[in-house]
């Protein structure tokens, strides 16, 4: 075990040697370490330029998103005052925000930069948002608007409070009558969407809210026309959500 004093010495020699050009290090260490060959070997082993592992240790910091999430909280997106982060996933982050004009809270889904950088994808998304906005149904969360502010693209949605079905299921079995009612509400919401050619790409317990006795699907997870279902289904298989997604292929057959 290296003693603290020896570690101090190693550390000083390392820093001094690291400041020198590689070609000058050998002479410096020969001089500084004298006859202590193990000291010299130790410092030399630290001076090896190991790009691979150095990169691995550094990379985590480089890939950290530049505090995008922190940037939104406490700021405005359009007129909306962002209050807190509700959740985040591959399709963006969802915040709780205040609509100061109407004095009500809303959910704001900020699209990820990779998404908004692709103009085709963005145009498709906006088209789908318009389609969805036309669906007015008590079991579907409402879309209030699309916002673009300082390069940030966001969808303003009804804020649905309460537990999701996934949360409920975790707490234990749900009485059969309630199950039937929930199923009826989901089916009713889906039907209203299907009538307009819109398919829920990601229907699963965690994406379905249960608020004040009424079930509604979160629109934040909705955005697909039938065209896209095949791709989504492929993705869902890789995710291990097959059991939840199986109906998606039935819809795909029905609509395509």
């Amino acid at each position: 075990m290296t003693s603290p004093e020896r570690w101090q010495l190693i550390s000083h020699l390392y820093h001094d040697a690291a400041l020198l050009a590689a070609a000058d290090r050998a002479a410096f260490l020969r001089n500084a370490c004298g006859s202590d060959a193990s000291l010299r070997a130790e410092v030399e082993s630290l001076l090896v330029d190991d790009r691979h592992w150095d990169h691995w240790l550094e990379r985590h910091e480089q890939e950290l998103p530049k505090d995008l999430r922190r940037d939104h909280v406490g700021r405005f997106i359009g007129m909306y005052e962002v209050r807190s982060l509700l959740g985040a996933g591959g399709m963006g982050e969802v915040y709780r925000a205040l609509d100061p004009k109407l004095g009500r809270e809303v959910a704001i889904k900020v699209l990820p930069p990779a998404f908004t950088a692709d103009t085709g994808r963005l145009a498709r998304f906006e088209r789908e948002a318009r389609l969805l906005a036309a669906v007015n149904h008590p079991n579907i969360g409402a879309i209030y608007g699309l916002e673009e502010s300082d390069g940030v693209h966001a969808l303003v949605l009804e804020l649905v409070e309460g537990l999701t079905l996934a949360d409920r299921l975790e707490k234990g079995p749900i009485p059969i009558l309630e199950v039937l009612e929930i199923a009826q509400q989901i089916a009713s919401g889906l039907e209203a969407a299907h009538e307009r050619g819109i398919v829920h790409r990601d229907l699963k317990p965690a994406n379905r809210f249960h608020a004040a006795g009424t079930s509604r699907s979160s629109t934040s997870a909705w955005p697909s026309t039938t065209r896209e279902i095949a791709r989504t289904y492929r993705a869902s298989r890789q995710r291990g959500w097959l059991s939840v997604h199986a109906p998606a292929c039935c819809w795909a057959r029905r609509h395509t």
Partner: protein
Amino acid sequence: MALAAPSSVAVTQLLVRWGKGDPAALEELTPLVYNELRKLAQWHMGQERHARTLQATALVHEAYLRLIDVNRIRWQDRAHFFAMAARQMRRVLIDAARRRGSQKRGGQVEKVSLTEDLVIPDRPEALVALDDALKALACLDPRRATVVELKFFGGLGIDEIAHVLDVSADTVKRDWKLAKAWLTRELREVCQ
């Protein structure tokens, strides 16, 4: 949203109490943060395939936003939260990496379950090696090991680390450089 966080008011109060020197507050805070990080990691894994490469540091930031009322704390408290969260993130990742390592040795089929083991870190064998190397470094040089923990697992910047450790930013830079040199040597020996 799908994931409910503990009340941010309560967690923020714990953080402020800890910042004022109350060790009992830290004891209450730590498991809350650990559980939140685990839950977030699992949730991301459930959401997206590419979350397999989710960044520990991003999770720590997200946990911070979910748990702490950012308008009610001083930036010093924020730094301390990140320091503690970095340690908990290290636990979450290393636990997952070790589990994954033992599964591989046991020859089990790789699978993604919905409730357990959802954090699948990038290069689990390297993370385990890093954890071992950090423990050895901590015996030799606790401050430099802490710098690595804060930077690698917590995503803290140099200035934030300097504040947490109450040293200069230059010292942190030198510490990080030497710690990296030491750790790359250990990783090279173990992982290749």
